[in-house]
């Protein structure tokens, strides 16, 4: 081989290695058509990568939306009767539609919806993208760069068992997945390193929750949000049995038994739906959509000092909260930008609207 060719060859290999090390995340995404059987929770990672929970297929997909902008779009997004508009686009009636999740792509400012067209077992999974002008278009799940991580045992051929995905988040190279099975009552919180490897299977950890430090159950997580407490990454999780708990992400290791620390008791008839964390006036708050209480605003001040509630408290326990009654009927909640949230809200009269609300 002539010397120049050899040099050129070495240079190309070097360039390829450099490219692969720089673009490691993208390299794992291969072009094709993801075999999504359903679309559930959505969460965005960096550079417009969308994570999609597929409960029926028992998998998490990472999809490169290619939806990035130098300056993410700003301004409010508002679509009245969005269920009717989506149904019209999909050629069906609103009653045959389910909106499963709402997420905002921080790289573009666009809002994404996961939707089931149909309510039976053969419902078609659809992803929609909405810009700030309110234009709705399909994000076709076809010929896209993607990767898949299978959730072990979530789906077993011929069995009636299935696993609902109740929460999904991306946090510093991990995809966190909360699930609940339709048979055994137990917590399934999985931490899947991203980029996914070919053989990636999320390993589940068990999280136990003790009420007032006494009775301990392996209760499922209903919704959760990552939050940094004194520089350490934590999960704030709302349980099916209502308390809000914290635990450090560093404990999420396969086979570990984690004990969550109760930081607030939300009381009876509570049904936490979605949670976001935001900053206002130099302080952090949790905003929780809740079926019976409208939106709940929970200041996190003092969260690091709570070592767990040890005594039953008459009313509010741990962190206190205020309820924003004006926003009753919120079904989905996502952070739009640092000052606003986007909500899917069932208005009086029954219309389903997509609205922007200033963070309280």
């Amino acid at each position: 081989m002539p010397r120049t060719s050899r040099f050129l060859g070495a240079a190309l290999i070097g360039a390829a290695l450099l490219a692969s090390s720089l673009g490691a995340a993208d390299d794992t995404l291969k072009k094709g058509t993801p075999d999504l059987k359903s679309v559930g929770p959505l969460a965005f990672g960096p550079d417009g990568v969308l994570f999609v929970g597929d409960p029926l297929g028992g998998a998490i997909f990472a999809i490169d939306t290619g939806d990035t902008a130098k300056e993410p779009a700003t301004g409010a997004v508002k679509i009245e009767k969005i269920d009717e508009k989506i149904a019209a686009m999909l050629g069906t009636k609103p009653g045959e539609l389910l909106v499963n999740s709402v997420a905002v792509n921080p790289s573009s400012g666009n809002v994404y919806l996961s939707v089931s067209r149909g309510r039976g077992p053969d419902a078609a999974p659809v992803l929609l993208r909405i810009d700030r002008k309110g234009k709705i278009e399909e994000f076709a799940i076809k010929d896209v760069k993607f990767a898949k991580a299978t959730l072990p045992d979530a789906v077993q051929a011929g069995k009636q068992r299935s696993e609902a995905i109740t929460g999904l988040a991306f946090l510093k190279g991990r995809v966190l997945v909360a699930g609940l099975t339709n048979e055994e009552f137990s917590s399934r919180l999985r931490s899947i390193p991203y980029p996914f490897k070919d053989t990636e299977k999320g390993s589940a950890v068990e999280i136990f929750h003790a009420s007032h430090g006494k009775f301990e159950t392996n209760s499922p997580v209903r919704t959760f949000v990552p939050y940094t407490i004194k520089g350490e990454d934590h999960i704030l999780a709302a349980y099916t049995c209502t308390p809000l708990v914290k635990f450090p992400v560093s404990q999420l290791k396969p086979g570990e038994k984690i004990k969550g620390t109760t930081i607030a008791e939300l009381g009876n008839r509570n049904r936490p739906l979605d949670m976001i964390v935001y900053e206002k006036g130099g302080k952090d708050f949790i905003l929780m959509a809740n079926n019976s209480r409208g939106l709940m605003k929970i200041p996190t001040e003092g969260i690091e000092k709570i070592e767990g509630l040890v005594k039953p408290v008459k009313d509010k326990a741990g962190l206190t909260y205020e309820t924003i009654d004006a926003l009753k009927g919120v079904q989905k909640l996502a952070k739009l930008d640092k000052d606003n949230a986007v909500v899917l809200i069932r208005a009086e009269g029954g219309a389903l609207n997509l609205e922007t609300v200033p963070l309280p």
Partner: protein
Amino acid sequence: MMRRIAFPSPAALRPGLGLFLLCAAIGCGRGERVQLATTAKQPGPIIRLIEGPAGHFEVAGVSPSGDADRKPDEWNQLFAVYVDDLSGSDAGQTPVMGSHQVKNGVLSFKPRFSLREGVRYRAVYNPSALSGTAVAEKPVVAFFSLPKADSSSTTVVANVYPSCDELPENQLKFYINFTAPMSRGEAYQYIRLLDADNKPVDSPFLELDEELWDPQCRRFTLFFDPGRIKRGLKPREEVGPTLEEGKSYTLVIDKKWMDARGNPMKETYKKPFRVGKPDDTQPDPKNWKLSLPTADTVQPLTVAFPKPLDHGLLQRLLWVVDASGNRVPAITTLSNEEKAWHFTPLKGWKAGKYELMIDTALEDLAGNKIDRPFEVDIFEKIDRKVEQKTVKLPFEVKEP
């Protein structure tokens, strides 16, 4: 640069003005379409639905030559399909998604998704949107709908587990089995728990947006609110446990619940039951009784439990391996109110040693697992701690 479609002169098409009902029941059978009405009169352009629900719409009677590069909005100005049921609202003007093309001189539109039974569609061809059209022409409108193959109510609740009529106070869940796939999204509206006076119990169940269905949407899992079962939590302290020992209740599944075809159920289902003591004890395989089959038969192995176990988990977390550790293929059934499990091998038993394998995640009715009770009082000693994932019960099949 936008290429133009060469249509015949719009004036020459003379689309009809009057709305007349064709009611051309071109086969009212399953999956076939009915064109209800059109504003077009022969020989002007006619909008047709080709090849049924998964097919496409086309405009016949116009002869465009060549294809065209148009943006979706521009295509929709020329030829669009709408869900007509939404007329009167702005959404009624949102066109159905799909793809347009001009092929072999025919303008067609293929919806992105199959047409739905019971939905009325309005197709609008607007000759005025043709490039180069100078004279405003009235649009041609046609209505289509796919009749529902079957709108009769036939689906019923097949059964509810546990099947016994006395449940522990800390009963954790019900499995509701239906005779056909059901629709998701509104499950909790149609489920009620009534007390002995037929008054609804307030918020008895865990309501999850995701709804816990099997993949075929034929079995619904209904958890009681765990916040009112687990001791020491606010919901239970505020309003007490959902079920109370000594009282009677009725689980009601309302027939208004739609099945996956969009038809309500045939009848309302009721499961009356009494409530007994809470159960805080783990199921212990040492107390199970095995009735053994004999070799060279396909007699079932029967395992009897002192108390009912979870119906869903029993079908998955119990199995049998032979002396080599190979799983024995079989059909399993349950009887005696989930207190008996029958394992019938597909091939005859051979004389020799076998093991009944028990996954320790198996639960009783109150969620007590073999390896852990539903809740552990961490200030008290746990009587029995099981660390392994499976427990084995060896047995031997003998010659008759």
